C-alpha cells in the first residue's frame, strides 16, 4: 500500500491521450459528493441543498443533541472494546501463523482468517442475527455484548492484516539472536518481538476501530432496541427527513476516520 518511488522515467502514462482527464474525472467522482457534504454542514439554513450562509450552528445542534451524545458514546464503547479485543486475538493469531515451524495446513489457516473479508457483510449480518437469536432465546440476555461480539468478529481480519505483514517483514534472526543471548521464549516475546511489532499492532488497532465505528449493515441487523450506534442513528434520521445536522455529524465522523487512517499509514511506513 506504500507509494512506490522507483518509478520508470522512460514510460509515463501521462503521454497517453485522455489519461489526465480520466484521472481528474475519477477524483471528482470520488470527492465531489464528500466535499459538498462537508460544505453544506456549514450551511446556516435548514435546507441541505440551498446555501444560505456560513454558520457552525448545526455542529452546535448536533453536539447538544442528547440522542446524538448517547449513540456516539455507544459507538465509541463498542468500537473500543471490539477493536482492542480483535487486535489482541489478531496478534495472537499472527504470532501463531508466523512464529512456528512450518506445519501442514498453514495456508488453510491463513485463508480461514482472511476469508471474512470476502464474505458479503449482509451474509455475516444475517448469520450473526440468527446465531444470536438462538442464544438470546436460550439465555434471555439482551445486552450490548452481542453487538461487541459481532464487531470483534468482523474486525479480526482487519487487525490481522497489518500485524501479520509486520511480523513477516521482521527478521526472525533477531529472535534467534535474543535466544542466543540467554533470553527465554517469554523474554524474547516481551523484549524483542512485541516492541518491534508495536507499530503493526497499533495500525491494526486503528483500522479495527475505524471499521467498527463506521459499520452499518451488521450493526443494523444485530442491535436490539435502543442500541443504536452513530451510523445506524444517522440512517434512522435520514428516513425522517434530512437537516444539515446529519452533514455536521457525517463531517465529524469523516474527520475522525481520516485522522485514524492517517495515523495507520504513518505507523505502517515507520
Amino acid at each position: 500500500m506504500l507509494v512506490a518511488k522507483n518509478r520508470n522515467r522512460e514510460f509515463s502514462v501521462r503521454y497517453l491521450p485522455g489519461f489526465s482527464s480520466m484521472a481528474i474525472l475519477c477524483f471528482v467522482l470520488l470527492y465531489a459528493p464528500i466535499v459538498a457534504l462537508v460544505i453544506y454542514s456549514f450551511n446556516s439554513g435548514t435546507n441541505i441543498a440551498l446555501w444560505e450562509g456560513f454558520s457552525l450552528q448545526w455542529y452546535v445542534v448536533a453536539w447538544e443533541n442528547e440522542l446524538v451524545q448517547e449513540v456516539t458514546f455507544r459507538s465509541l464503547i463498542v468500537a473500543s472494546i471490539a477493536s482492542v479485543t480483535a487486535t489482541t486475538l489478531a496478534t495472537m493469531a499472527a504470532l501463531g501463523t508466523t512464529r512456528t515451524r512450518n506445519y501442514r495446513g498453514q495456508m488453510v489457516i491463513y485463508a480461514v482468517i482472511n476469508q471474512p473479508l470476502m464474505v458479503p457483510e449482509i451474509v455475516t449480518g444475517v448469520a450473526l442475527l440468527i446465531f444470536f437469536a438462538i442464544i438470546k432465546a436460550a439465555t434471555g440476555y439482551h445486552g450490548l455484548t452481542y453487538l461487541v461480539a459481532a464487531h470483534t468478529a468482523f474486525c479480526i481480519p482487519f487487525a490481522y492484516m497489518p500485524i501479520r505483514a509486520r511480523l513477516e517483514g521482521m527478521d526472525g534472526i533477531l529472535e534467534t539472536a535474543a535466544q542466543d543471548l540467554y533470553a527465554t521464549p517469554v523474554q524474547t516475546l516481551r523484549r524483542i518481538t512485541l516492541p518491534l511489532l508495536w507499530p503493526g499492532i497499533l495500525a491494526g488497532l486503528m483500522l479495527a476501530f475505524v471499521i467498527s465505528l463506521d459499520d452499518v449493515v451488521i450493526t443494523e441487523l444485530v442491535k436490539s432496541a435502543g442500541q443504536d450506534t452513530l451510523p445506524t442513528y444517522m440512517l434512522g434520521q435520514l428516513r425522517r427527513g434530512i437537516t444539515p445536522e446529519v452533514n455536521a455529524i457525517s463531517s465529524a465522523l469523516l474527520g475522525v476516520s481520516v485522522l485514524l487512517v492517517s495515523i495507520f499509514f504513518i505507523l505502517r511506513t515507520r
Partner: protein
Amino acid sequence: MSDPISQRQIAVEIDSATKIFESETSSVTALDNVSLKIRENEFFTLLGPSGCGKTTLLRLIAGFEHPTSGRIRLYQEDITFLPPYTRPVNTVFQNYALFPHMTVRQNVSFGLEMLKRPKGEIEKTVDEVLNLVRMEELGDRQTSDISGGQQQRVALARALAPKPKVLLLDESLSALDYKLRQDMQIELKRLQHETGITFVFVTHDQEEALTMSDRMAVINEGRVLQVGTPSEIYNFPTERFVAEFIGDSNFLEGQITEQNETHVRVQFSPASAVELPSGQTLLSAKKVTVAVRPEQATLTSATEQATLQGVVKSMVYFGTHTHYVVELDSGDEFTVHLQNIRGHELHYENGSRIGVMLDPAAMQILKD
C-alpha cells in the same frame, strides 16, 4: 599461548553428528556423520563452499538446530538438546542481527541482563567490552546510526559481553568491504588473544581461513574432508576437493609401478615418472592423482632433464610472479608460477618447447 594446541582441553566435541532436513517433498542431508574436536582457546575455522553444511554445524553448537543423530559436547557436558538460551555459547551473526529498537549499550548489555547479573557488574562489563572493540564513544547511538564496520564491532561486543565459553562467528566478515575486512581480521585475532575465548569461525573464503586459523576443517557436501593447521591443509591436501578449494593445484594422473618402504614410483607416461617419499598415505589403488602447487614447479628449456614436456601456451605477468600455462604432451594443461627475482627473470616465449621440473617433496598423492 605457549602450550601446544594438542595438549589443551577439548572445548567443543562434535561426535558423529548427522543432520537431515525433512520436508514433505524432499530430505536433505546437511551433515553426514561429522566428528570434530575443537580445543580450548583455539581459532578454529569451518571452511567450505556455500551449502556445504558449515553453518548448520555452527547452528548445532549454538542450539538453533538439533542433530538427527550424534552428540554435541561442551567441555564434556552433553548439550545436544539444550535450548540455545541455556548454553554458554554466543554467536556473531552474518548480518549482525542487532536489535534495532535499542541503543548500542542496550544491545551489548542484553545478554547480561538476561543472565540477571547485578546492575553494577553489567555497567562495568559493558564499558570493558565496548573498550575492547573501540566503541566506547558510541554507546548511546542507535544501531541504525552507525556504519557497517561499527555494527560489526557492536555485534562482537554483544556476543563477548557474557564471556561465553565459545564464540561462534557465522561468515561475520563477508558483509564488509575489502579494507574493513582486513582490519577486522587483525582485530578478531587480537580479541581472541586478549579474551582467551575459543572462536569457531565459519567462512567460504579460503584466504581468510588460511590467514586467521589455528586449525581448520574443510567441509564439503556435509562431510569433513580434512582437519589441520593452515600449512598442513595447504601443503598436504589429502583429497582433490581440498587441493582445488584451497589455493591452485595441478593434477596429474599416474600409476603406481613400484612401492617399497621408502619410495613410491608413479608413472605418468612411458617416458616420465617420479619417485615420491612414501608413507604419506597407504595406497591400495594402482591409479592415483598427484597434486602439485603451481609455485612448486619450475620450467627449463633443457627439456630432456625435466619430468614433463610441453609447449608454452600462455604467459601472464603479475608483478611478483609470472604465470605460465604449459600444454603438456599428454594434452593436459599445467600451470607454473615463477617468482620474479630482479636480475634473474626467466622468460619463455609462447609456443616454445619447455620442460616442467617437479620436486618430489612438494607433490602430494591424493586419496580418491
